[in-house]
């Protein structure tokens, strides 16, 4: 019995360390905590950029650790990676490339496959993410976004039906507004988009950047108001979105001036 216990202990230790004796579990816990801390810090951009760097460095010695891959690809998706970059022995030219490597190494990770699905925007990739974990709300919202892009807003709206897990995911109402807009229901889209301008997501299922959620909400609200023939009301929202970096909003504003 004692021999079995010692053997199990050794096995656990072997699994948690790499060939260089590095404690990969400890690295993963540290980077995961960095990502969690980003929810409460003032400078989220800095926190995400640091998490990307910490994850990238830890992948050098722990190339199999799923939490490290997730930290790297999620922060890269949010715009805080530096590319091209070597990740766990693989060269990544951009965030999509990084997510492909991450998904190759971690094919059962719903959260990594979800990031890949959002970055590629394809329905097939999003369906794969949902199949891995149907209860993971970001996978379902990724599929909804892909369906809107593919011209199937009604299917997207069905996926985005209100529920506690869907509502906990940042930006879901904006996505619902985009689906409504694509379905030709501009008035409903306006009402839905407005809600994300002030909403909070204290139990978000994944790290998120509040600035980009607000920017997307402003952009979608502006476009919905334009579609609802309320250009005067649309302009301040499009200006706000453009000021936060939306090229779509900037283009829409130029079109209004013409």
């Amino acid at each position, binding site marked *: 019995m004692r021999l079995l216990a010692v053997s199990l202990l050794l096995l656990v230790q072997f699994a948690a360390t790499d060939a260089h004796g590095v404690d990969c*579990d*400890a690295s993963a*816990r*540290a980077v995961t*905590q960095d990502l*969690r*801390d980003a*929810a*409460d*810090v*003032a*400078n989220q*951009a*800095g*926190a995400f*950029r*640091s998490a990307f*760097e910490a994850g990238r460095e830890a992948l050098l010695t722990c190339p199999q650790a799923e939490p490290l891959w997730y930290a790297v690809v999620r922060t890269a998706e949010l*715009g805080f990676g*530096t590319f091209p970059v070597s990740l766990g022995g693989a060269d990544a030219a951009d965030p999509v490339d990084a997510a492909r490597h991450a998904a190759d190494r971690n094919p059962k990770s719903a959260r990594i496959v979800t990031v890949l699905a959002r970055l590629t925007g394809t329905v097939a990739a999003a369906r794969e993410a949902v199949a891995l974990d149907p209860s993971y709300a970001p996978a379902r919202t990724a599929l909804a976004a892909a369906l809107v892009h593919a011209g199937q807003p009604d299917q997207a709206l069905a996926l985005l039906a209100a529920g506690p897990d869907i509502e906990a995911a940042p930006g879901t109402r904006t996505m619902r507004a985009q689906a409504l807009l694509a379905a030709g229901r501009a008035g409903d889209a306006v009402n839905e988009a407005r809600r994300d*301008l*002030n909403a*909070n997501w*204290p139990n978000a299922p994944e790290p998120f950047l*509040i*600035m980009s959620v*607000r*920017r997307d909400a*402003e952009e979608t609200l502006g476009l919905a108001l334009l579609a609802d023939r309320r250009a005067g009301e649309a302009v301040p929202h499009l*200006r*706000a979105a453009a*000021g*936060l*970096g939306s090229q779509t909003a900037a283009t829409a504003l130029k079109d209004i001036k013409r």
Partner: protein
Amino acid sequence: MANFDKLGKQSKRGWDTKTGIQAIPVGQTAEISLFGGGPAPDYKVLEVSAEKPAICTIHERPLHPPVTNWRGFIITALQKGDTKIRAILPGTTNEWATMQVHVTGASGVRLVFFPGERLASGTTLGTIYVIGGKGEHFSAAGGAPVGYKDRGGHTAEPTPPGHYTLGPKYHVVTSSWPMSSIPFGASLRINAAGEVEFQGDSSGWQLATGRNGVVTKAQMAFKQRDGVKPDLATVIAQVRNIFIDPATGNLRFTTWEKNDFGRWGWNLRRNGQPTAYFVHTTPDDERNTALARAVFLANSHGCVHLKPAERDQMIASGYLKAGVDFEVRPYDETGPP
């Protein structure tokens, strides 16, 4: 074809139309306009800058109302000397229009911050110029160019333009951001009850974690301001994880370097009163500097972010200290390239 000249009600004080020389006392500004652009058929927008940026700086300021084929600029005199202002075709050294600036006199040290100079990778970046020094300038990022509602009851907003005075240098502590409820550089330890304590500049050891810990209390309030009713036990566990690795029971670090205001902060005081705005660094930039990694400034909630290495340089030069005038210019004054 292009040329500099005064337009409409722009002051002609110090301007010699015949020679194209603008005289400006140190620390003062002068408006100027540029007519025209690059050659046909695309009439590219010309890049306007000072040949000697230590003498003066020039920013584009939109004309109100706009005038066809004219662009407005404001020149800020930094130190005594002469320089040429050039309007060049982008990507070339071809001068399409020039003028001279003659800066006279002297001034005590003042800092002028242009927060809206340029957009780089989604961040609106600016520069702090030293007036009455050696013409130095330092990178900085002000508040978000457009306001939005943030977490914990905070809003991000542009740094308000106006005249401020720097308060004294200190470790900023505020319970409005959980990570900032402990001063930067404070020592950490685990007490006999297994809770984390910290020791700041002047006080004794204080609780950070647990029911009565300052970070726990700040985190509870942060979430309550978001309109949620946080579960105390959950928050206690979350806060504990910030400090202690649950797998080992050990402190993750023994010095607190996660304060949102970085190592040092200077309040921007207005009319003798403190404001909500500070000049400071960020903990990630402090860490990246210590690790010799690249530093990327980010827009703030209204404060002025500095790079840690440049902060140290400004302290050493006597530019960041109590009583120094600090002017924030409007975001629509952009450039130079």
